[in-house]
């Protein structure tokens, strides 16, 4: 299928452009804003009781970091550094590299986000599908629609604050913050796993509940619009049981647009989850960014942002490339997805 080849090329171009634009923005943004990184660094060091040394030493640093060279040259050097996976050093916790900081934060974020996104997508799609299928017949189920609407309009972190108050403060069933209890060492024991799950419960719940509302609503409308389609009428005419028509015909067909929805909303999910992490003190990338903002640790902010953008772009690319393979109806044409 020649169309697929073209689709692959198109999506690859967008992936490369995404990475290129992000790298460029991340590189130039701090340099175009007035301010001098070494000045900021020496101020920062002075705050914690150290110093960079005399002017000669500052000049030496400028030379070492390549800050005395023209911008394009710095840019090329930065790209070369990135290509080797080197994100530089943290300013706040100096000898630690940005890469190491992110490496210890990333598993928390990815673990939490992947599991909760999949769970809420599945639950939301199934309930939304059932409610859509029953619309006009079972009145009681329609009461879920306004609830889903409410959940959908509430941002993650707002729900997070409410959940912390209700389930960690008023009625303390879950710990208030962190990813595991202080004093515990990460290990592969059942106790540690239970502790991690307990700490992840509230952040997970807030992501699941909010995105559940959206998946519910979109699946419901997909099923309702699909009900009038010929293949459903035909399946009914054949005398297939209602349950089978729903699962094997209506639901199955609506799953694909839902998948596109997942791909398109990935960026939003990640953005919202980052803010949410700070409310729960969950030690993922969002919390890392939050604490780096407090200490003006630009290399860490830049590195984290770059990494997340590239991760989201990669996930999008995978879904985009898989989509036409799953759904043969899509003749990949000029318009890409949807």
């Amino acid at each position, binding site marked *: 299928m020649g169309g697929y080849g073209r689709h692959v090329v198109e999506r690859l171009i967008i992936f490369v452009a*995404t990475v290129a634009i992000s790298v460029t923005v991340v590189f130039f*943004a701090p340099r175009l804003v007035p301010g001098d990184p070494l000045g900021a660094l020496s101020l920062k060091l002075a705050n914690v009781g150290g110093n960079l040394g005399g002017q000669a030493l500052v000049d030496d640093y400028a030379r070492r970091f390549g800050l005395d060279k023209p911008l394009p040259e710095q840019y090329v050097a930065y790209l070369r550094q990135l290509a080797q996976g080197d994100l530089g050093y943290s300013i706040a916790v100096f000898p630690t590299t940005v890469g190491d900081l992110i490496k210890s934060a990333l598993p928390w974020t990815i673990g939490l986000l992947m599991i909760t996104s999949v769970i809420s997508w599945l639950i939301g799609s199934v309930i939304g599908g059932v409610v859509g299928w029953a619309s006009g017949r079972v009145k009681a189920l329609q009461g879920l629609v306004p609830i889903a609407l409410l959940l959908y*309009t509430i*941002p993650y972190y*707002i729900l997070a604050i409410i959940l912390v108050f209700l389930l960690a403060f008023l009625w303390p069933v879950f710990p208030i913050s962190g990813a595991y209890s202080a004093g515990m060492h990460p290990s592969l024991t059942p106790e540690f796993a239970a502790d991690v799950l307990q700490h992840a419960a509230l952040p997970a719940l807030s992501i699941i509940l909010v995105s559940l509302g959206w998946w519910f609503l979109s699946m419901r409308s997909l099923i309702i619009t699909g009900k009038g389609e010929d293949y459903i009428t035909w399946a009914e005419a054949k005398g297939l049981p209602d349950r089978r028509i729903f699962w094997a015909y209506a639901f199955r067909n609506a799953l694909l647009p839902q998948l596109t929805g997942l791909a398109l909303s*990935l960026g939003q999910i990640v*953005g919202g989850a980052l803010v949410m992490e*700070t*409310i729960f003190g969950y030690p993922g990338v969002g919390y890392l960014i939050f604490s780096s903002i407090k200490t003006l640790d630009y290399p860490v902010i*830049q590195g984290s942002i770059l990494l997340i953008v590239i991760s989201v772009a990669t996930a999008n690319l995978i879904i985009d490339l898989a989509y036409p393979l799953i759904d043969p109806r899509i003749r990949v044409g000029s318009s890409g997805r949807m």
Partner: protein
Amino acid sequence: MAATVPVLELAPPPAVEGHGVLGILLHNRKFLIGSTIFLVLLAVCLIGSQVTGPLPLRSGTFKPKLGIGGGGLTILGTTSLGQSVLAQLFQAIPYSMLVGVVAAAIGTTLGALVGLISGYFGGKTDAGLRILIDVFLSIPTLLFAILLASLLRGVTVPALAVVIGIFAFAWPARAVRAQVLSLKERPFVQVALLSGLSGWEIVWGELMPHLSPWLGANFVNAFIAAILAESGLAILGLGSQQQMTLGQMIYWALSYGALLQNMWWWWATPVLMLIVLFLSLYLVHVGLDEVSNPRLRGAQ
């Protein structure tokens, strides 16, 4: 109040001609309820902040940590620093709305422009702009806003709104482009072309009236997203230090430990107000959607 609805910008698509958009809008219950809540909130806050002046915002004006139900300005309690929560709300709600208006205006205008150019002129311009649109659709743009806001620390609320608005162009651009592609083939555009109108005259005079109802609905959507983005930035500690917004109120409440000290009035009021604001805007959005897309009318 109804007279403030921008009638000209909401020129009707052919399907609703003969009714008058304003009439239809005012008959739409969702639009009516949503916009009433919004306008009443705005009016109360503007009048309230004029009446109270800046003093109740200063720390130490009242006794700190007063609970809800006090008299006058302390009716919604006070903060750890002895500021009136009510007076903070009076300032925060209009500023949050300001973020929404500014960012939505920038995002929608920029998006419409990119979408129109991309869809109407086609060719290489379109190919380039499409990549740009797709890139910004898939990027978590909040991250770029975080980067910029962290570099421009302590900016004013409107400046923050501009940053948010710039990154909000992708959704409207994508939708406008798709609309323009289909409108372009309609006979009235062909007639306009044959009668010698220039590209910009066609875009402005022929295409815009058909796009504007949709742009109105998108504007409200972008409004919600911008308030959301600003409060997200504020909670991360990147909000404006100079003016209060609802997100900034939540940030201060959280950083002074309002949650753990059970000073629920401090964090719950901005949280509740954000939800009310979102719901009112959502109703306006659904209302506009139903008007611009007659097929949706009475669907629920």
